């Protein structure tokens, strides 16, 4: 890393490109819309902001893009070499490299309870790293692990030079545009205040030369007739990516309480429940493969008469459960 990229300088000389990765329903789009509205208050700036999402439900990976420049912007293609990359939901990294294409000396903003140093090491980042424990702040103030308020604040810290009052007002104005009740807006105001004090940052050099380079598109290959893509209708479609973030299914039967009723097996839409036949009781469940296809639909949890299935907190990107200590 030769030098850190000065974001204001990038805007003045050319176009600042920002990309965000998150999951549907997590507020990524709102954070970007609020930032665009905030930046557009400066009459000298031109801003474009738009999302990319599929028809898949809540929990699917989504992206947001933004361009900011002192000159009119005509380019409409996706941002592939962002100077700033936001990771709104660490679970999104199971499907994408949020840092892909970010140049040396770029800026990374991560919604995480981990420190900038831990993130730089874990995600192999070179540049300025900002972190904020947005989900925790969301849980405290909004009663849900919504980190978008904090991620938005961290983004404005990364950009610098923005009036804190205007930052808060812009986000709350975006909420009002969506006709959010006043009581919820007040809770968001509290989350904004809490986020300001919780942003941490540092400069690191942890990326190797081959890290985060974009794979070259090599064509679509031979698609099976009728298939929408190589992923659809096949085991290659990692449906676990659509699971609510921060949780994972756990089967726990230390006392051998499984009755062999097989309700969970017949209800599971993904066939991820492992079992063995038992002459006396039926089909005894031995475990669950949550690695690729469990989308946490909750069917097994609902139908098990012995309540042997649970949804537990889990940091997918780090492979640790909530109760496990995080290495300093």
């Amino acid at each position, binding site marked *: 890393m030769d030098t850190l990229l000065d974001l204001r300088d990038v805007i003045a000389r050319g176009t600042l490109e920002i990309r965000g990765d998150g999951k549907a329903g997590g507020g990524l789009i709102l954070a970007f819309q609020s930032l665009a509205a905030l930046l557009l208050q400066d009459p000298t700036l*031109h*801003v474009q*902001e738009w999302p*990319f999402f*599929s*028809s898949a439900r809540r929990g699917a990976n989504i992206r947001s893009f933004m361009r900011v420049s002192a000159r009119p*912007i005509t380019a*409409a293609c996706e941002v592939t070499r962002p100077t700033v990359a936001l990771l709104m939901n660490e679970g999104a990294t199971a499907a994408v490299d949020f840092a892909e294409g970010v140049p040396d000396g770029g800026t990374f903003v991560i919604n995480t309870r981990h420190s900038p140093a831990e993130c730089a090491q874990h995600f192999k980042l070179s540049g300025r790293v900002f972190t904020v424990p947005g989900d925790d702040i969301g849980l405290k103030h909004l009663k849900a692990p919504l980190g978008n308020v904090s991620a938005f604040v961290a983004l404005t810290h990364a950009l610098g030079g923005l009036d804190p009052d205007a930052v808060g007002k812009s986000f709350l104005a975006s909420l009002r545009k969506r006709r959010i009740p006043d009581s919820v807006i007040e809770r968001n105001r509290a989350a904004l205040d809490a986020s300001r004090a919780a942003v941490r940052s540092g400069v690191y050099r942890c990326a190797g030369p081959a890290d985060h380079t974009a794979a070259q*598109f090599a064509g679509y290959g031979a698609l099976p007739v009728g298939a*929408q893509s190589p992923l659809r209708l096949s085991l290659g479609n990692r449906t676990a990516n659509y699971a609510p973030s921060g949780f994972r299914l756990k089967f726990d039967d230390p006392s051998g309480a499984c009755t062999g009723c097989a309700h969970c097996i017949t209800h599971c839409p993904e066939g991820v429940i492992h079992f063995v036949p038992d002459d006396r009781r039926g089909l005894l469940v031995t475990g669950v493969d949550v690695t690729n296809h469990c989308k946490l639909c909750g069917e097994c949890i609902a139908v098990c008469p012995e309540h042997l299935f649970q949804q537990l907190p889990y940091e997918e990107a780090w492979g640790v459960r909530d109760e496990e200590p995080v290495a300093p």
Partner: protein
Amino acid sequence: MSLDLPILPRATTAAGERYDGVIDLERVRAAHQPVHRRRDQLSADGNTAAAIATLQMWRCILYPGFPITPSTKWIETVAAYVASHPGKKRVKLLEAEHAVADYLAGAAAACRDLVFPTATSSVGLDHMTETTRSLGASGLGNVMVINVYRATANYPLCIEGDPSDALAHRDDGFIQLVCRGPQQIYDTVLQAPCLGMHPEIMTPTMPGYWGIKDSHRSARLVVEPDEEIHAFQDAWLPESRLPGLLNGDTAFGNCVTSRHFQGFKLDQKRRMERVFELLPRIGADFEHHFGRPGLGLFDGAGWNGTADDVDIAVVGMGPDFGTFEALRAGYEKRHRVRVAGMAMRLLTPFPREAVRARLAGAGVVLVVNHAHHYGRGHLTLDVADAIAGLPDPPRIVSVFAGLGGADVSEGTWEALLDRARAALAGAPVPAWGMFHEGVAL
């Protein structure tokens, strides 16, 4: 709708009952509550920009609709505004798109001086087809179907922008206008009724823009005061000479023999072609009023004038053309070729004479198609038709990119231009090529 209007004497016509003056336009105008009293700047996406434009027109009082991605935010925005600003405007959420189109027809026939907008996409437009075909022929230029482009196929389902829906409806009888970016979307929606309701045209309009890429793209939007918008529109909209038709007597009542059918279609075609002359005039007047470019036949990039002797002339449409604009000068410099481009703004009727004049001096024409076509591409066929008969017509390089709303990256544009450059040097040109991420597929 309750406008407390007086019941006026009826006059009978050969076509049925006629209610002259049944809607008091001055009272409708007076009931309008301004959305913006002064020029303002907002951050808005394309759907919001289209919604604001329709809300600002005093002639828009009924908003029928049925939601479909990616156009849903248009009706959501209109409905939210109407609900929070009690007045005379009404939203009519209907059972399906076909019902919306029927509603548009009935309402527009009942009062030809008001504007009746809706927004739809993809199969939503397909569902309307039976009625849009009739609307197109009906003379109901006061109908505006805002088409938020999305691939028409339900299999595979794709919710992103692809103009295959608009291109499948080229012959419905609508004037199809293409826009990109919230500002152009807003401006186009404001100008469209002036074109469609012009006494010499009387043809419904279909302003269109890319789903997601533009419907969901936010940028700065300058909104004009309602009063100024009304002054601009009213100057172009004299009171309709045709009666308002109520009580089941709509514009769809006629069944004709082939003898009349052909004559009817000839007249329809002639009305449509008046667009070529009137559209630029409306656009120029808009620019005079508001200081921004108004409607045009196409946006140009890199031209020094008509029939400029460029090496490569690009013909495309939609937001991806902006990426070409961003890299055009750099490509010219690196490869020492002259490159210019045109993004179509008027899709139907296709402005063949203007396109021919602009492309006459080009070495190669690179036509970029963004929708599936079993031939060389919808746009390619139009361009080929436009340049046919030129003494020394440029070679056409026909390509597809961005199908289903796929990203058209800078790398893809470079690859497209490289193919055109190879053709310029005499390389053989395949009938068509498809590109993605800089790769010929």
